[in-house]
C-alpha cells in the first residue's frame, strides 16, 4: 500500500473558530462516555430488577421478565434505535411529542433516544447474568436467610444479590464494555459521539486512515482502562471460595 500517513492532520484547524480536529475527537469521546455511562446505569438498575423477577417464586413476574428479555435480545440494536428515535416520539401525547421534537436541542433528543434504547437493550442482557448469578448460589443460602427470619426483599438484598454480583463481575464487565462499543450506533441518528466525529473528520480532511486509526486507539484504550478498573473492583470485593463454599 502506498499511502502517505499524515498524523499532523489532528492538529490542523477545522476552519470553525480556533478548533482543531483533535477537539472533535475529544468532544466525541465526551458524548460516548456520557451516553455509555447513562445507559449503563439504566441497564444495571433495570437488569437487576428483571433478573430478580426471573428468580421470584411468583409466575407473573418471572413471565414478564422472560418476555422482556426475549423481546429486547432478539431484535437488532439498530432496529430498536430507529424505533425509539423515529416511532416512539410519534406515540407520545401531543404536548410531549412537540416538546421532544421541537423544543429540545436535536443532540439532546438524540441523546435521550440512544440512552433509553441502549439502556433497555443492555438491561435484557444484564437480567440474564443476574439471574444466572442468583441461580448459581446454593439453595441453602436463601433457606438459611429465611430460617433466620428475613423476608424476601431482605433475602435478596443481604444474601443473594451481594453474592450473585460478585460471581457475575466478569461477564458484567464485558457487558459494560459492550455498552461503550454499542454506543457508536448513535452516530446513525446524528449524535456527534466518537464515531460520528471520526467520520466527519475523515470527510473533511480526506485523511480516512488516520481518523479511523485514532478512533480505534481511543476505543481500545478506553475499554482496556475500563477492564482494568473492573478487574480491580473484582479483586477488591472477592470472597475466596464463594462458589466452592457450600457445595450444593
Amino acid at each position, binding site marked *: 500500500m502506498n499511502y502517505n500517513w499524515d498524523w499532523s492532520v489532528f492538529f490542523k484547524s477545522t476552519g470553525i473558530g480556533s478548533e482543531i480536529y483533535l477537539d472533535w475527537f475529544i468532544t466525541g469521546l465526551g458524548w460516548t462516555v456520557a451516553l455509555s455511562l447513562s445507559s449503563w446505569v439504566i441497564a444495571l438498575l433495570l437488569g437487576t430488577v428483571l433478573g430478580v423477577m426471573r428468580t421470584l417464586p411468583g409466575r407473573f413476574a418471572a413471565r414478564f421478565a422472560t418476555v422482556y428479555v426475549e423481546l429486547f435480545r432478539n431484535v437488532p440494536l439498530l432496529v430498536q434505535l430507529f424505533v425509539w428515535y423515529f416511532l416512539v416520539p410519534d406515540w407520545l401525547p401531543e404536548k410531549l411529542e412537540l416538546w421532544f421534537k421541537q423544543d429540545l436541542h436535536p443532540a439532546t433528543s438524540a441523546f435521550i433516544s440512544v440512552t433509553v434504547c441502549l439502556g433497555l437493550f443492555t438491561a435484557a442482557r444484564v437480567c440474564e447474568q443476574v439471574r444466572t448469578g442468583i441461580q448459581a448460589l446454593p439453595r441453602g443460602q436463601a*433457606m*438459611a436467610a429465611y430460617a*433466620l*427470619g*428475613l423476608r424476601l426483599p431482605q433475602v435478596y438484598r443481604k*444474601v443473594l444479590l451481594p453474592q450473585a454480583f460478585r460471581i457475575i463481575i466478569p461477564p458484567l464487565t464485558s457487558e459494560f464494555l459492550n455498552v461503550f462499543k454499542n454506543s457508536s450506533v448513535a452516530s446513525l441518528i446524528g449524535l456527534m459521539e466518537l464515531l460520528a466525529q471520526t467520520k466527519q473528520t475523515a470527510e473533511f480532511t480526506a485523511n480516512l486512515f488516520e481518523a479511523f486509526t485514532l478512533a480505534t486507539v481511543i476505543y481500545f484504550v478506553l475499554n482496556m482502562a475500563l477492564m482494568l478498573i473492573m478487574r480491580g473492583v473484582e479483586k477488591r470485593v472477592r*470472597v475466596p*471460595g464463594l462458589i466452592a463454599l457450600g457445595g450444593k
Partner: protein
Amino acid sequence: MLHLNDIALRYGAKTVVEHLSLSLAAGQIGCLLGASGCGKTTVLRAIAGFETVREGSIVLGGETVADARRSVPPELRQIGMVFQDYALFPHLDVAGNIAFGLGRLDRAARRARVDELLELVGLTGQGGRYPHQLSGGQQQRVALARALAPSPRLLLLDEPFSNLDVELRERLAQEVRAILKAAGTTAILVTHDQHEAFAVADVVGVMADGHIRQWATPYRLYHEPADRFVADFIGEGTFLPGRIVGAQCIEIELGEICRTVPFGGRPGDVADVLIRPDDIQHDDASPTRARVLAKAFRGAEFLYTLELPSGARVLSLVPSHHDHAIGEAIGIRAEIDHLIAFARGE
C-alpha cells in the same frame, strides 16, 4: 412443644412421607434416623416451612404452623436451621453471620449476643474471620451459633456432621449436645448415622419409606426394637431360629432363654431371636463350641463372626487379648439380658 400429627408430604404425585406423627417436649433433642431417601430431610424441611404439608398438621408451641390449608412462612416460624453444608454467608465474617438474624436488636445488644454465642460455641475472639478461613468443625459451630442467636423456638439440624471426618464427628456430636442442653434448646436432628443419633438425641425415630417405625430412646431402640426392621437397622446382630416353648421362653441352638419381654407367637411356633454381639460371651469352659469365620480388630475388642454347629452365624464381641485364629473353634456362652424375638411370618 412440637407435634406432628399424621402428616403427609408429596412431591407431585410421589408420596414421600405419610401418616407420620411425633411429639417432642420442650428442651428435648429428637432425631430422625434413616437411610438416605427415607424422607427424613423432607420432614425437617416441612417443619421449617420449606415443604408443603398435604395432610395432617404441624403444631409448634400450641400454634398450628402448617396444615393442608395454610402454612406460616419459614421467616415467621422462629425455627432455626443448621444445614448439611452449613450455608454460611461467605461474604460476611463470623460475627456478621451470627448477627444476621438479630436485625431487631440495637447495635450494642447485637454485639453482646454475638459475643455470648461465640463463647457458647468456643470461638471467642474469632468474630472477624471469614467462613473460608475456618476449618470444617469451626464452620459447623458458626452455623450452630448463627441458628441459635435469635433464640429460636426450635432448632433443626440437617445431617450436621456428615461433612466432617470421623474423629471430629464424634467429638462435635457430644459438644453440640452439650451446647444445645446448655442453651435449653428444643431440637431435631436428621442423620443416617446411628452413632450420631445416639450421641446427640434424647429420643430417636427410626424412619423407613416415609414412616417412623419406632420413636423411642436410644437404649430402647437397641434393646427393645419394635419390629424386625428396627432390630436389623439398629446395632449389629444376627437372627437365630428358635422354637417357642412357653409363654416367655424360646429354645434356640444356644439353649433355652426365658425373659419377661413379651413377643408374639404361641408355644410350638418358630421365632427368630435377635442375637447381639454383646450377647455372646467367650468362655473356654463352655461346652458350646463355634468356629471363627471372620474377625475384625477394633482396638479394645475383636468382633468375631462365629459359625455354630448347625451352620447358623452369630457375632461376638471379645476383649482383644483373646486373639483366635480364623478356623479355630472357641467356647461360647449366651448371656441374653434382653430377649428380642419375632414370630415367623410376623
